[in-house]
């Protein structure tokens, strides 16, 4: 059980992110919560690919040929870039909103309620 701590950490990060999204009212903080969820998912992805005693899967002057899984690392790289892109787009939206509305408080975004 204790050796599974990376998985628990990943789940915990996702949970913290969700809690931030649910409880905070500032749009920027909500986007930060989303980034936390992303970090948790990335951690879970990388952790699933670990093999005990393995080294990074790069053969240039490698210390041994017992290596960890490569696919998840590639997936994590992809997801990191996607995450940066998403965060940038959402933050741009928040910037426009806060300039046009004069507030970032989510409870004051009443214009789309019926």
């Amino acid at each position, binding site marked *: 059980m204790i050796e599974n701590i990376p998985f628990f950490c990943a789940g915990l990060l996702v949970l913290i992110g969700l809690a931030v999204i649910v409880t905070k009212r500032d749009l920027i903080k909500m986007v930060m919560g989303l980034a936390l969820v992303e970090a948790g998912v990335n951690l879970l992805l990388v952790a699933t690919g670990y093999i005990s005693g393995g080294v990074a899967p790069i053969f*240039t002057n490698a210390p041994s040929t017992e290596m960890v899984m490569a696919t998840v690392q590639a997936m994590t790289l992809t997801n990191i870039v996607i995450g940066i892109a998403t965060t940038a787009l959402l933050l*741009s939206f928040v*910037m426009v909103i806060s300039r046009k509305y004069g507030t970032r408080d989510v409870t004051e975004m009443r214009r789309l309620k019926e």
Partner: protein
Amino acid sequence: MNMSNLVRSGANILMPFILVYGFYIVVHGHLTPGGGFQGGAVIATAVVLLMVAYSYENVRASVSKHVLKNSETAGLLLFIGTALLALTAGLAFFGNWLLDLGVIFGTPVAFGVNPGDINTGGIIPVLNIAVGIEVLGAMGLLLLAMLGGLKGDAE
């Protein structure tokens, strides 16, 4: 607003090192940790450094949006073009058509630990460079767009 002389001189000195380091990460992507995305991001931090050291207006004046946009488009077209060329070589989309050809990047690699040669990897270094150019342009554009939005300078 301009930062102090010290910061600006430091930025001037660091700038070439950042560029060279980013370029190194891009072209050695198939041998050492790194690759197009990472290297492109490192080069894009040079733009950030400029923005920190000098004012946004100065950077806007010296770093042209058109150059960044062109480099983004060129990188993407090079990327998808390289992948599409595999079709003409009789392989599937994204086939490694430069592999084992013996010409540039085409040296075969055997299994096992080795010191690494730059001219291996087939289309991988080409794609790395393409992605590097694209990420540099895209990150630069994003930063300029968001900073421009911050200053209320819409365009």
